[in-house]
């Protein structure tokens, strides 16, 4: 990828800044060739990756190096875009929101600082992947499980910072974070929570600060570079039982939500319950041309044929219970009875007991995998995906309304419908997977039109996205409009106070520092 300089920075000043960075990290860790820039491009970009170009990357190996780079960025007026491992596929990968930003790649900071099996937590640097942590725990045979997302290539902390979700009792990943170390935009170093006291022993155990608690202000945020954080882990259970219900019809999702959400809220079910539509199974069986060889969405009559042929329900609930055997049996009786009020077929049941192997792709057992990414092969070519991800109350009224609305908009754009609802308790996260071939401009144009329609109509109905791709960060922030966009104004006031030069992540989630606010119209999809 050819060089795009940061706004208002000339080539000589840019070279001077990179030389200064090399003085901190060594020249091997300042990455500024065309091939380097390709490595930090958005490989799932809806359109040319050149729309969100990094000018270079710099990869520090320690907190002191991060502090030095941030101070130099202020001195040279160079915008930085910190990434943990840069695997935020579908939401921008490692690419920056503002063209010409220098990616601050924290992948070398990959130490597992501590794992405590007794109190079930660990302390990590941002470069630690889900695979790394899982294998470190396995090698020591520690009684701990992770909660993993669909793509476990990424950083454990980075996923939590971006509000990622998993499918275990610890599935709301940002809620597992406890106690941060953060480099602020001026290079100062702060520890949050109990860690604000030198040598405090409860830093990663007590989730609140003395005074305001700032931890989550550093997630989906441009207010600092988190260099380490505590993360609570699930104690390995003695046993687990999976109950798999195939749910036959599209409209059944209403009673399913009204059945499962109360059980989740009451604590009978403690995992995040993932309910994908049928296409979630089909994408692992082949490409769409294997099942439907015409352009446009697979018609309903063909969907019915495929469901019958492959013995699939329209939805699948693969629900998992964890704990002592006797407790699981009692809970399973309650779940079976609740589901039986609307579904005659009993679930398929799979027991696991401590000492049994966990299979290679079971996200409900915290095993890291990248297999769900196979979905991008569905359309063929240079496949990619985006996720449209609004959050709705976990009741049939809201879920059915969201389903019908997004279904109609997606059908109007003649795109295959692949939705899931993940019940997190009082809310459900509705992720609509939109898959496209990056080499088909008409598909990309259609996806952009579709995405804009989904954001607009969903916001009109009173629901917002929890996370989005770089190209829509401003559009989604626009939907949070209470009192003249008071939330954005608050974010901007804090941002300008802490980061007057706007060196950290300008434009992240639609928050622009005064120094770069004139760039906010650029880079929108």
């Amino acid at each position, binding site marked *: 990828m050819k060089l795009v300089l940061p706004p208002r920075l000339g080539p000589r000043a840019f070279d001077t800044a990179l030389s200064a960075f090399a003085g901190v990290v060594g020249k*091997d860790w300042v990455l500024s060739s065309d091939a380097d820039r390709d490595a930090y491009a958005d490989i799932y970009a809806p359109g040319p990756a050149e729309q969100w170009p990094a000018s270079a990357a710099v990869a520090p190996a320690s907190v002191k190096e991060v502090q030095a780079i941030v101070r130099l960025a202020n001195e040279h007026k160079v915008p930085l875009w910190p990434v943990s491992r840069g695997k935020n596929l579908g939401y921008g990968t490692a690419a920056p929101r503002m063209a010409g930003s220098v990616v601050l790649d924290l992948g070398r900071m990959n130490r597992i600082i501590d794992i405590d099996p007794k109190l079930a937590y660990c302390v990590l640097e941002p470069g630690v*992947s889900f*695979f790394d942590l*899982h*294998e470190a725990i*396995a*090698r020591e045979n520690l009684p701990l499980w992770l909660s993993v997302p669909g793509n*476990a*290539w990424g950083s454990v902390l980075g996923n939590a910072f971006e509000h990622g979700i998993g499918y275990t009792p610890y599935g709301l990943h940002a809620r597992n974070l406890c106690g941060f170390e953060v480099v602020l935009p001026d290079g100062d170093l702060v520890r949050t929570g109990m860690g604000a006291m030198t040598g405090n022993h409860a830093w990663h155990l007590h989730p609140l600060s003395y005074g305001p608690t700032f931890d989550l202000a550093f997630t989906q945020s441009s207010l600092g570079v988190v260099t380490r954080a505590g993360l609570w882990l699930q104690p390995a259970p003695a046993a687990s039982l999976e109950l798999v219900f195939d749910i036959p019809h599209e409209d059944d999702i209403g009673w399913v939500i009204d059945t499962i959400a109360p059980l989740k809220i009451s604590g009978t079910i403690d995992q995040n319950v993932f309910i994908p539509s049928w296409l979630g199974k089909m994408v*692992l*069986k*082949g*490409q769409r041309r294997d099942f439907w060889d015409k352009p446009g969405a697979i018609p309903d009559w063909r969907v019915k044929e495929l469901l019958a*042929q*492959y*013995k699939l329900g329209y939805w699948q609930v693969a629900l998992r219970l964890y704990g002592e055997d006797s407790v699981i049996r009692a809970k399973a009786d309650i779940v079976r009875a609740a589901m039986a009020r609307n579904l005659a077929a009993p679930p*398929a049941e*799979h027991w696991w007991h401590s000492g049994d*192997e*966990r*299979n*290679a*792709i*079971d996200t409900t057992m915290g*095993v*890291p*995998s*990248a*297999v*769900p*990414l*196979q979905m991008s*092969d569905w359309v063929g070519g240079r496949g990619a995906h985006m996720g449209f991800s609004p959050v709705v109350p976990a009741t049939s009224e809201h879920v059915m309304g969201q389903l019908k609305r997004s279904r109609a908009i997606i059908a109007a754009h003649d795109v295959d419908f692949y939705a899931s609802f993940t019940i997190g308790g009082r809310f459900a996260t509705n992720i609509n997977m939109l898959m496209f071939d990056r080499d088909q401009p008409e598909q990309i144009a259609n996806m952009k039109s579709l995405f804009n329609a989904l954001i607009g109509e969903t916001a009109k109905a009173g629901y917002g996205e929890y996370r989005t791709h770089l190209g829509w960060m401003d559009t989604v922030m626009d939907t949070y409009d209470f009192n003249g966009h008071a939330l954005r104004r608050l974010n901007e006031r804090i941002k300008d106070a802490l980061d007057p030069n706007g060196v950290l992540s300008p434009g992240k989630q639609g928050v622009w520092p005064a120094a770069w606010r004139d760039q906010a119209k650029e880079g929108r999809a």
Partner: protein
Amino acid sequence: MTPIARWALGAALTLAQAGMVLADPPPLPPYQMRAPAPPGDRLAPGRDGKALFENHCGYCHLTFGMGTNLLVKQRLAVGASPASALLATI
């Protein structure tokens, strides 16, 4: 279970066609550990190639990894052995 046997089971499940899909399929193969990253400078020659492959590529290219699964489909489509999709064996 040997790596090849585990791979074969995984591939069969991934590529299962209509008549092969079971209501209660057998368990998938267990997670396969990667080798730890060999120590030393990333640019230095002479590091353990097998360990490097497993550590850097093993996210996707060991048994039942995403890359292995996609390559199985491609290899079958050109009439090649599915075992050739497991890069560590070729």
